[in-house]
């Protein structure tokens, strides 16, 4: 169905300017001589956060096949090459090397609402958008009522789309795209917009497309829940290379540990969190066991701080909130080492073994005080971390609730 062979894509970084013309001329010159341009031999791996040369491989030696009817999720961090891959598949741009073989009608939803014209009415835009996506006029005509119905914008259908709310925009656009009837559907993060009702509708439609019609779907998303929900296979991209191709669960797990690698980095402060009393250095958050913070891994904070005025009875308090600003706890204690001796620099390691926070994102604040009565220094929420879900028992889904305590039953069989 889709065969991807040795696909690589090179990009040149930086601005296009007079220097580009020099490069172009150089390239032509090397081409005429039949030699390779030495500049192009130092193409580097595409790492977003490191400094390097001007040429990078956005994709490097990608090989995989997709069978008919398969729903494949493509995951990876920002800049891993997901969108580039989809762009190559949908013929928006060409690969530098390699080839892709596709079979049948291919439609891509790289961004819904492509080619909407603000001055035209919803109805006119359905035709325009449909044609851009490759439908014929008669095809659109036959599906028009269905599309309008699906979009839920019936009342506005003869109003110019510039009067639409952004959500309606997306609804209408997705409605057109959902009725494309392609053999291969390429979807890039379209579900991130729209309200909950619409997301449900969209996912339902995509399931219908893939499940009922035996169509092939390539789906890019950062939303692991929808990947899990829709796909039967996942491909993990990292710095432009395929690092995993196989079961969805395994791919998601690898992706998450990849993410938490980033979170485990040390936080170094210059003067941000210091005042006349306290200065915090090198704050680090890590799981107590395993590679990433999960429901049962426990959390460890380690850092050092300067007690500038050698104050006695310093206490440290941690406050963790969830993203809705609900404080989960605010708790701390006096550091024993400072009760008798006047100290200046201290290394701290705090462990919270049985926190059992449920999967989700949390943020942290640290407060220094004297004898838990006088405030010395308070940070804002300076650090965000993610608690990964983990299968406890048979259920591998993310469950509701703020905490996921470990429950122990002691049961006696009575009869």
């Amino acid at each position, binding site marked *: 169905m889709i065969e991807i062979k040795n696909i690589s894509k090179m990009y040149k970084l930086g601005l296009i300017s007079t220097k580009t013309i020099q490069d172009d001329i150089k390239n032509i010159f090397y081409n005429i001589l039949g030699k390779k341009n030495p500049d192009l031999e130092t193409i580097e791996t595409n790492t977003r956060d490191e400094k390097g040369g001007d040429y990078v491989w956005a994709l490097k030696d990608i090989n995989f096949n997709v069978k008919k009817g398969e729903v494949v999720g493509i995951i990876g961090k920002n800049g891993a090459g997901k969108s580039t891959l989809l762009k190559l598949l949908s013929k*928006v741009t*060409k690969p530098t090397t390699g080839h892709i073989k596709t079979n049948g009608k291919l439609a891509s939803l790289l961004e819904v609402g492509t080619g909407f014209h603000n001055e035209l009415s919803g109805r006119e835009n359905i035709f325009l958008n449909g044609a851009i996506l490759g439908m014929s006029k008669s095809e659109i005509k036959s599906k028009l009522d269905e599309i309008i119905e699906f979009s839920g914008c019936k009342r506005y259908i003869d109003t110019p789309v510039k009067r639409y709310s952004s959500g309606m925009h997306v609804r209408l656009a997705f409605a057109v795209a959902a009725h494309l009837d392609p053999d291969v559907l390429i979807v890039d993060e379209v579900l991130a917009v729209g309200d909950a009702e619409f997301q449900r509708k969209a996912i339902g439609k995509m399931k219908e497309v893939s499940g009922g019609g035996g169509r092939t779907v390539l789906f890019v998303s950062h939303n692991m829940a929808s990947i899990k929900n829709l796909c039967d296979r996942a491909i993990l991209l990292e710095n432009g290379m395929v690092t995993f191709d196989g079961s969805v669960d395994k791919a998601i797990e690898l992706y998450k540990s990849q993410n938490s690698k980033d979170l485990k980095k040390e936080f170094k402060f210059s003067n941000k969190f210091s005042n006349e009393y306290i200065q915090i250095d090198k704050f680090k958050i890590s799981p107590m066991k395993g590679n990433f913070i999960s429901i049962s891994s426990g959390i460890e904070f380690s850092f050092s701080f300067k007690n500038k005025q050698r104050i006695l009875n310093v206490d440290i308090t941690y406050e963790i909130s969830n993203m809705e600003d609900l404080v989960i706890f605010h708790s701390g204690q006096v550091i024993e080492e400072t009760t008798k001796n006047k100290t200046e620099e201290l290394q701290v390691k705090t462990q919270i073994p049985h926190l059992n926070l449920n999967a989700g994102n949390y943020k942290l604040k640290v407060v220094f005080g004297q004898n838990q009565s006088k405030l010395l220094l308070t940070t804002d929420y300076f650090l965000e971390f993610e608690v990964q879900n983990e299968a406890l028992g048979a259920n591998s889904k993310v469950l509701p609730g703020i905490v996921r305590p470990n429950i122990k039953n002691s049961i006696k069989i009575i009869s």
Partner: protein
Amino acid sequence: MKEEVISPKKNLFDVNLKEIWKYKDLLFLFVRRDFVSVYKQTVLGPLWFIIQPIFTTLVFTVVFGQLASIPTDGLPQVLFYMCGITCWNYFAECVTKTSNTFVTNSAIFGKVYFPRLILPLSIIITNLLKFGIQFLLFLGILFYYLYNGSNISPNIYIFTLPLLLFIMAALGLGFGIIISSLTTKYRDFQFLISFGIQLFMYATPIVYPLSLAKEKLGTYSWIATANPMTSIIETMKFAFLGNGIFSWYNLAYSLIFSLILLFIGVIVFNRVEKTFMDTV
């Protein structure tokens, strides 16, 4: 189901006309979009299409006809200028509008594939509609002068009009897509085109007759006829107004020139369209 291969190899003459035919609905929807959206939320609506040539004609009549007293081959000044302006507008609009195809449409091009040539083609057709409206205006004024017994004599050569339109479209499209291909990487050409087309108008016998240019330039008069637009304007004036320099030889030159230009344009465009998203 047809198998399709996407690969970096480029065949110079690999223009997929069949595919363009498949997307003809899109072509006409683009035409409709461009035509309709121009006068949405205006009071005068499509009238704007004729206001512009009327005022340009008036200004030309006052400046070049009355103040500078440039001869018009004995033709009524209003008709003389309007004939040239109507044709020139078509050509100039085709060039300027197609010349920024890639830049203005990069948002669509970056998201979805369709034969890129559809967009410049739709611009040529949209402008043809505009030309139609302006041409009707010209005909109306022509009839007015005929009715009042002016010294004009439309003749059998008016049937060359489709050929003239074809040559202008080919020239406009050819120039336009070559420039649009170049602007994907270097925007310099955008500046060039905006004043270049204005200067080009003065190199074409619109505000003066070719006969005058030939007389003044003497042995250098080939410069005036080397301009492929010259024979079109002159044929137009000859056919509809009855005075101008008509020669099949010059017209054939324009036709061949336009075909070669279009051919080069399509090849260049075809080459650029596949990777332009990386540089635009």
